[in-house]
């Protein structure tokens, strides 16, 4: 019993320490934003935006397409039983833009980029590259974390819009083929019922998720200990923690929006 309590205490202590480290890291990265406007940092940031977009483009497109198709198939089936299949457009559009698009994109970027950031910085940590930067008086926050945080904050909304568009496209194909809803009827219903608020909340969520993915990845990377095992563990923790934070943040942002 005592051992169990000690283990729980240890876990809570470590979690609080990591959370504190992550929040301080985020604050210090935000404070170092003016350093982004140097030619070298801007170039690093643009390179990362390009690499990140390219790396997650295909998987986001495929997942978004099928998510839209699944939403249309399930939603259409229920609506058809009520003779309301012409409402598929609004249901899919609101779901994709407000909820599923940002959430799904965040999960994809967490798995592909968040884990990558943790592994990359973690490897640099265990191979003493971070220490080498510190000795050269180069801040690892400005040099490594800032460009990654800015790149993810910029590309997550872009990929979310792209995922929303592809998802709606997929849904329109299913609506036309399976339920006889024409493209015009589908898009009219979607556009008439989609408010600017839905678009804004989707974008706000994606920005928050982008910041979360980069911060958690960088935190886990910078806290990496040990060799290859430590790097693997950092990447795994980054994915698990970001998944949990994304779903919790998503719920509360929707709650605030709908309140």
């Amino acid at each position, binding site marked *: 019993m005592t051992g169990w309590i000690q283990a729980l205490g240890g876990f809570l202590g470590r979690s609080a320490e990591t959370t504190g480290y992550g929040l301080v890291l985020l604050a210090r990265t935000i404070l170092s934003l003016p350093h982004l406007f*140097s030619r*070298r940092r801007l170039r690093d940031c643009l390179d990362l935006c390009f690499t990140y977009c390219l790396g997650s483009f295909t998987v986001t497109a495929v997942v978004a397409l099928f998510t839209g198709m699944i939403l249309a198939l399930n939603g259409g089936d229920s609506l058809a039983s009520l003779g309301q299949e012409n409402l598929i457009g609004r249901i899919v559009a609101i779901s994709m833009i407000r909820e599923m698009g940002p959430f799904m994109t965040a999960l994809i970027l967490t798995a592909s980029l968040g884990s990558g950031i943790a592994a990359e910085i973690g490897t*640099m940590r265990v*191979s*003493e*590259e971070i*220490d*080498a930067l*510190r*000795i*050269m*008086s*180069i*801040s690892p926050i400005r*040099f490594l974390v800032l460009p990654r945080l800015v790149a993810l904050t910029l590309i997550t909304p872009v990929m979310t819009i792209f995922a929303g568009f592809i998802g709606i496209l997929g849904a329109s194909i299913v609506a036309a083929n399976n339920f006889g809803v024409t493209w015009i009827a589908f898009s009219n219903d979607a556009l008439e019922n989609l408010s600017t608020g839905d678009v804004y909340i989707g974008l706000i969520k994606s920005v928050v998720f982008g910041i979360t993915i980069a911060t958690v990845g960088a935190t886990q990377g910078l806290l990496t200990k040990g060799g290859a095992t430590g790097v693997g563990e950092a990447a795994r923790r980054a994915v698990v923690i970001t998944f949990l934070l994304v779903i919790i943040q998503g719920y509360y942002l929707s709650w605030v929006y709908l309140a």
Partner: protein
Amino acid sequence: MILLENLTKILGGKAILNGLDLQIATGETLVLLGRSGTGKSVTLRHIVGLMTPDSGRVEVLGKEISGHSEEELKFVRSKVGYLFQDGALLNWLTVEENVALPLKEFGKTPTSEINDRVQEVLKEVELDFHGDKFPSEISGGMRKRAGLARALISRPEIVLHDEPTSGLDPISSSIINGLVNRLKSSGITQVLVTHDMHSAFEVADRIALLHEGKIRSLGNVEEIRNSADEAVQQFLDGKIKGPLTQGAIDGVCDSEENGNEAT
């Protein structure tokens, strides 16, 4: 130049440094010897402020540095070059870009001067034909030399080497030793951590043996070679039994005698 006074550092509940006192004079090359885990690298990391002592004082170039912030350490770090065990080069930059990094990041040196200095130090470490290669495309010895070139680009007054010849073939080790001796003749203060006795005798002005978190023996090459200290002789001869392994060997023997698993 470098003063370590009553330095104590506890890591994982174990006193790695336990009242270490050491003074290194300007232009001196000191080699730190000792068994693995005796705190040699930890000592180097204190000199450059990568670690903060639990107690004691670290003074570098006349400035007390223990407990200072990264910002406050900038002055001292600008005068110190550090060669890490595997070079610690950034994998996405070429050798030239890695070497130029300390100068390029601060943007105070004109590009043409940076390029000239990069070529100069690469030539010094005999890597002038490999500047366009990535760290993954060169050997371990070349990575170490590239790391040394990066440490030298800022024209430091102090260079710290963490196991500069470990894992290298004898010829690559000799190249590194030659570089250390060239730095020595140009008056740079150096501290080397190594297990390579040949290298230690070739480059050292003084040799210090670290044991149980303190300096056990300190002297010039001849004094160390002829030392009456059993610990020094055990280390030089690589004997298993002796003062350096007293606790460990006894522990193993005791546990074996008691039928316990040695851990």
